[in-house]
């Protein structure tokens, strides 16, 4: 392997690492207040890490309608984090109070 190819490869790897670092840095929050997820629809870029925070004094859960993610029971101020890597629409609800529904829209 010659030096220039090596450099190019390294640059490529670094660039990929960079993209990955950027994506990992993107974060968003969903709050649970008064038995509701806020915002009810959250639009994010693929790779965004979403943190769900329960601010009620009753436990809630964050459960994907299609089974892609599921939190434990979140007591007051407990958090659940999930990274949405792939584009699409992800509906979720609270399995204890299933009238609480919301969705995450992941754009490419």
């Amino acid at each position, binding site marked *: 392997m010659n030096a220039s190819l090596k450099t190019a490869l390294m640059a490529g790897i670094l660039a990929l690492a960079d993209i990955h670092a950027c994506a990992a840095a993107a974060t968003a929050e969903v709050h649970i207040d*008064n038995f509701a997820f806020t915002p009810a629809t959250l639009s994010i870029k693929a790779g965004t890490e979403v943190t769900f925070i329960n601010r*009620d004094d*009753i436990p809630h859960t964050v459960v994907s309608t299609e089974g892609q993610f599921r939190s434990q029971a979140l007591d007051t101020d407990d958090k659940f984090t999930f990274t949405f890597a792939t584009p699409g629409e992800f509906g979720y609800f609270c399995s204890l109070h299933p*009238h609480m529904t919301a969705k995450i829209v992941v754009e490419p």
Partner: protein
Amino acid sequence: MSKDQINQGRIEDRKSEAEVGEGKSEAEVREGLSRRGALECMVWAGTGVLWTMAGGVPASRLIGSAQAAPETGFSFVQISDSHIGFSKPANPDALGTLQESVAKIAVMPQKPSFLIHTGDITHLSKPKEFDDAAQVIGSLKIDGHYVPGEHDYIDDGRGKAYLERYGKDTQGAGWYSFDQAGVHFIGLVNVVDLKAGGLGNLGAEQLAWLEADLKSKPASQPIVVFSHIPLWIVYQEWGWGTEDGAQALSFLKRFGSVTVLNGHIHQLMQKVEGNVTFHTALSTAFPQPAPGSAPSPGPKLVPPGELRSVLGVSDVVFHQGTEKLAITDHTLAEAQR
């Protein structure tokens, strides 16, 4: 007569006056009152009301502080929503108010034959919460029959902790039936595998079991069904109801006396449909707002001096031979009158 009883009397009087004012005869008003009482009777917390079941139509009267023990029949108590582990401002000591509830049961004039707990024994399904509840309730030394609330199913094993303690001799997620003194009791589970956007749920397997369980029972046998979430739709917006509850109730239509006991909504509510009397119990931990009266069904903060007037237990007396079931709700504050 206690202050609460006087207040209750005044409310009823006011209703009558208003309707007489609408040009209705007194007889029409009386008929309207009893019909309304039967169809949408909601007894809000703070008083003790005795409900008597006769031929599917309940009559209510306010109870005095001194109660005579019934001569025949047997009684059982319902407690609900003890939420052991809850320590938020609405009640920093849920274990303490459970102890008070149990103390109230211990001094009932007729010792209850057994106890029914309609779920949310614990707040977070933790072993210590289950232990504490079992220790306090166990001090009564009477049989306990339980159904889980959604709070009893949130351990990592998703119900394992509950079923290890209360799942013996039950089916599926913990449903079962038993007979006592000619009354058929059915404990149903409607807090498991809930669907997004939906309500409480019994599921096909449990419904099939229920239908089979009832098949051999004569229509004259009194039936008591208990589950955590109300089997009827109390308030859809807050998820207070059971998606497939109507299907369960369809199996009960042919029976002459059906009593449905629920919890979950932390307030008294009563309604009658045909031969079915629905009753929801007070919590022993904290009250919740009336449907739609607050932004959410979260715990309702009341002034500390009033907490015990919105917590309590119910006792149900079965009068042998008459197929009557009388439900009496006792608040924790009663003893302090």
